[in-house]
């Protein structure tokens, strides 16, 4: 039998000093107490945990690999990756915003305040922010919105302007708009009134480009919108970054489970989302 939920000895937040270890180990397994865990609408949950010092070094676009409890008596095996939605370093907290889609996230949603969440991280290559940029555009849909939170926060902290275009099925699923409003302008586009159509988003982006408010593009969560940004970015020579997803096993690089296709100078190649990403150059990514 699997025995304990982990064979390794994770860092227990609030219970012990970080174990002495060589300085070259940047990520760790840690047990983080849940501070808050609320539904934000019928499908999404907001999870706040107390995090270890190492976990708090997470940068925008990086993710943690979470050991979700099984939602039933069956065993759940793979960890589930979730990118960080917000970091509060002063209070030592990390926040996730996630959608309940299958067994893993359903299991995750059963965690109660005070329960310990086993997380491995921080992992992956996050977003890069060029301080020379004056204004960036972030375009997210669905869960992709969560992933774009930290880079927007970072931009604001560096006095880079942010326009956040948040695409959703309906007004209920425009999440975190107040959070994004703190960082800059928010444009919500919805399926219900047709504003989320690619055509309309293209108009909005074209307007921002015309106003020189688009020094860089960031996107996550929709292949359709990614393809749009990629096309406009190419046409107008605007650098872009995309955060991608793929089923993962190890989350650390060795297993090559999490690959996506990329194209450089007409040559296709596969890259691992977990360690070469999850954030990639928008022009090199092929999509999903």
């Amino acid at each position, binding site marked *: 039998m699997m025995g304990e939920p982990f064979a390794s000895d994770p860092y227990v937040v609030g219970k012990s000093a970080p174990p002495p270890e060589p300085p070259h180990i940047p990520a760790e397994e840690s047990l983080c107490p849940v501070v808050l865990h609320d539904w934000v609408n019928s499908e999404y949950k907001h999870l706040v945990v107390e995090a270890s010092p190492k976990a708090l070094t997470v940068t925008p676009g990086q993710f943690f690999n979470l050991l979700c409890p099984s939602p039933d008596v069956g065993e759940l095996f793979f960890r589930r990756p979730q990118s960080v939605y917000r970091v509060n370093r002063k209070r030592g907290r990390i926040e996730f915003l996630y959608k309940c889609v299958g067994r893993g996230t359903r299991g995750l949603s059963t965690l109660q305040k005070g329960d310990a969440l086993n997380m491995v991280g921080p992992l992956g290559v996050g977003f890069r922010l060029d301080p020379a940029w004056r204004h960036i555009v972030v375009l997210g849909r669905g869960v992709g919105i969560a992933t774009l939170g930290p880079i927007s926060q970072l931009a604001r902290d560096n006095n880079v302007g942010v326009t956040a275009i948040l695409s959703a099925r309906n007004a209920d699923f425009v999440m975190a708009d107040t959070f994004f409003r703190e960082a800059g302008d928010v444009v919500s586009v919805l399926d219900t009134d047709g504003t989320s159509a690619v055509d309309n988003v293209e108009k909005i982006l074209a307007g921002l480009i015309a106003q020189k408010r688009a020094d860089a593009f960031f996107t996550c969560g929709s292949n359709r919108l990614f393809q749009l940004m990629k096309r406009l970015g190419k046409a107008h020579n605007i650098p872009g970054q995309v955060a991608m997803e793929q089923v993962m096993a190890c989350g650390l690089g*060795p297993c090559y489970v999490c690959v996506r296709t990329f194209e450089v100078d007409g040559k296709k190649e596969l890259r691992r989302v977990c360690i070469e990403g999850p954030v990639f150059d928008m022009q090199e990514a092929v999509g999903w």
Partner: protein
Amino acid sequence: MVDMRVKVGSVSLQNPVMPGSGCFSTDLAQVMDINRLGAMVAKTVSREYRAGNPPPRAAEVEGGMINSIGLPTKGIKYFFEHQVPDYRRFRPPLVASISGTTIEDFEAMARDVAKGDIDVLEVNISCPTRDPKGGNFALHAEHTYEVMKLIRATTDKPVWVKLSPNAGDIVTVAQAAERAGANALVVANTILGLKINTDTFRPAIGNKFGGLSGPGIKPIIVRMVHQCAKAVKIPIIGCGGIVKVEDAVEYMLAGATAVMIGYLTFRNPSGMIAIIDGLEEWCAKRGFARVADLTGAMIDEPPMETFAAAAAPIG
């Protein structure tokens, strides 16, 4: 103090725990101290660049996972120029795993890889994700003998061979490998499986079939280790579904000199270290001064109950 050292033929390991090929890279330095491992086992390499199989490449199943990565590799040149130097930043012996398409290719690969800066050559003739019939040379004793005989002649370095649990008779394959001069057997690679998604009616992974690994296969592979250990004199490395200290012990009791770990690392990134520590503790508690004494220590008698007659077969 427990003596944790083991010898796999001429290769001395500081402890019997190492990763399975394809489940390890120096990327794991993100979460663990690689210098603690018994050995480092590199991902299987082929001569030329291979992209591997289409995603999704893995899926969960009860008691394990199936994967079909398809042996992606940057090729032998990249392996020696970039990966070997990267591994050499760490101290444990380096095991290089090779794959080939034909017997000639295998021979040439062995020659070229063995002369590089590696300590052991592991020959992967058993990858189920390339051949839908479930393996390669390792399905048949004669094929195994032929390829291993040629490979043996190319080098003086230790040669290990990774066998396939998909073989109908793994014992004769093991004996063939021994006759051909293999220095150790890795028992075993993954078992060919299929998972169908009942929502989409399609296979769960891109390559349709994939190799099954994880705790669910352990009883099968422990059985094979035991059978092989009875039939050959060369050391055996047990591999399949080890997720706790007792699993490693079980493999050694069955006859393994050392063990390899894959699946556990995915869930518990520094799990191998925990197994090493736990194994030492287990030996100390049970009064074993040397972990090597566990090898083959299974008592090959029925688990008789107190009153023998009640358990004895009758008629």
